């Protein structure tokens, strides 16, 4: 659905040039929810803006729904844009129009006759759950409701792709979740390809099928969300994964335990999918001469399945502990022996 080939974006400014996006190649499949995560300044915003031609790449091709957005302009670009919906961090609704009129705006642009327009707007209001607020102005809506209007507006012309530019970053956690649920619902109902950028791993974890991690304009890591959660390779990815699975106090607890028990090992176990359902700890204490002390655990739900992390302290003779760790390794459970806390 979307292919980026060696895309580079360089901004010229008075104090030299800045490479915002550096030779990025990417393929996004039809119907998937693809997340791009990075800190601010990583270039993700420039990247998503190139997908609908709000920014032109300095080099490279941007192919969305068989059109090379990098090369087209004028009428052709406007038509391409009608097939690409976009929602924004600050909603960008027209304050002078009601909910209904805001949603009708892209239909007016596409030249849809009035009668059909009204019908389509009603459908969209149903779809995003804004019944009863049709005639409200944006200033009378909450953040979550505004984003629902933004989503309805973006879907008005039945786009093939929906771009989400930090769409939940201005919302509180509860509202974020309800908007994310709506996005998943839309993705499944309409088979819509969704590309989102965010700095919150929570968003990636909750709805994305695949993720790309951006740093300094480059994609440093990408893959299935569950895979990236299980085995983050880059330091930045590990930091993002920690955002969701490892509360701050874990580090302190572990540091404390390493000091307190010079014997034995503190171990991080990572369970993915079915592995999470085995009685691993029970088996360990039954089969080996070790004591297992559970320090902290958490299970996170991703779009593709569950993912759990458990911190345990295993105590016993060196030999038994080594045997126990070997045993865990055979169970398709990720093991990491923690010797000190970074």
């Amino acid at each position: 659905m979307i292919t980026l080939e060696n895309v580079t974006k360089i901004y010229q400014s008075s104090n030299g040039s800045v490479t915002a996006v550096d030779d990025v190649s990417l393929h996004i499949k039809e119907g998937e929810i693809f997340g791009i995560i990075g800190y601010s300044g990583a270039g993700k915003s420039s990247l998503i803006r190139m997908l609908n031609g709000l920014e032109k790449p300095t080099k490279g091709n941007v192919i969305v729904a068989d059109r090379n957005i990098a090369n087209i302009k004028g009428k052709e670009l406007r038509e391409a844009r009608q097939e690409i919906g976009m929602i924004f961090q600050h909603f960008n609704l027209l304050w002078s129009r009601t909910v209904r009129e805001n949603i009708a705006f892209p239909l007016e642009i596409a030249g849809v006759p009035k009668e059909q327009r009204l019908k389509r707007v009603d459908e969209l209001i149903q779809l995003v759950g804004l019944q009863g607020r049709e005639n409200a102005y944006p200033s009378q809506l909450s953040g979550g409701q505004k984003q629902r209007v933004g989503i309805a507006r973006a879907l008005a012309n039945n786009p093939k792709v929906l771009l989400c530019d930090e769409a939940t970053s201005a919302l509180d956690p509860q509202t974020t979740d309800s908007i994310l649920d709506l996005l998943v619902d839309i993705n499944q109902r309409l088979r819509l390809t969704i590309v989102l950028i965010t700095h919150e791993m929570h968003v990636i974890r909750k709805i994305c099928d695949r993720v790309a991690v951006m740093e300094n304009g480059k994609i440093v890591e990408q893959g299935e969300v569950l895979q990236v959660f299980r085995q983050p390779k880059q330091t930045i990815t590990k930091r993002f994964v920690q955002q969701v699975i490892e509360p701050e106090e874990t580090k302190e607890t572990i540091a404390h335990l390493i000091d307190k028990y010079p014997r034995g090992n503190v171990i991080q176990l990572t369970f993915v999918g079915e592995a999470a359902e085995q009685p691993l700890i029970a088996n360990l204490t039954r089969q080996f001469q070790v004591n297992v002390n559970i320090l902290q655990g958490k299970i996170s739900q991703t779009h593709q399945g569950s993912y759990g992390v458990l911190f345990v302290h295993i105590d016993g003779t060196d030999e038994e502990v080594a045997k126990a760790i070997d045993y865990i390794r055979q169970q398709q459970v990720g093991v990491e022996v923690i010797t000190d806390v970074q």
Partner: protein
Amino acid sequence: MFNSLLPNVQWDTIWAATVETLYMTGIAVVATFVLGIILGLLLFLTSKGNIWENRLANAIIAAFVNIFRSIPFIILIILLIPFTKLVVGTILGANAALPALIIGAAPFYARMVEIALREIDKGVIEAAKAMGATTATIIWKVLLPESLPALVSGITVTAIALVGYTAMAGVVGAGGLGNLAYLEGFQRNHNDVTFVATVLILVIVFVIQFIGDFVTSKIDKR
């Protein structure tokens, strides 16, 4: 009753002068509104980072606006005499005042329009572009409606300035309440006529301000 207090006031003359003032102000406001919005849009759209970004065009329009905004109105009328003669055919009467009124007020209003357009959230313009809107659609359906309250309060301020300009134009023969106050009131030393003319001008200003404030509050849904 009034007539004993205001011995020199001839109400039919006053009425005629009021109509002239309203006529000059009305036509000038409408023309200034249109011309000012066009100039303001051009200033905005050709500025840096906008749809028609063009430094040369922007510099030329800005220079034009600044020059005509800076010339004191009474001098502008005199400078425009040849132009007025060419366009209107005379330099006397209400119609003769119009070119100077419009050329004096439109650049002033154009700057207010530009400021109003700058206040629009850039994200909204970006959203319209992302939907595939043409520039004409962006102007008609985003820029003008989203800045409308500021455009209306701007034209209110400009209209009030225009009432003042018509009085000045009156001094050099354009008619209206300013003309009356100067010729009848000042030169013949009929203070009561000056007084009545002043009161009427104040009433016109208050009414314009009231209408402007009312319309602004009605259309502002922010």
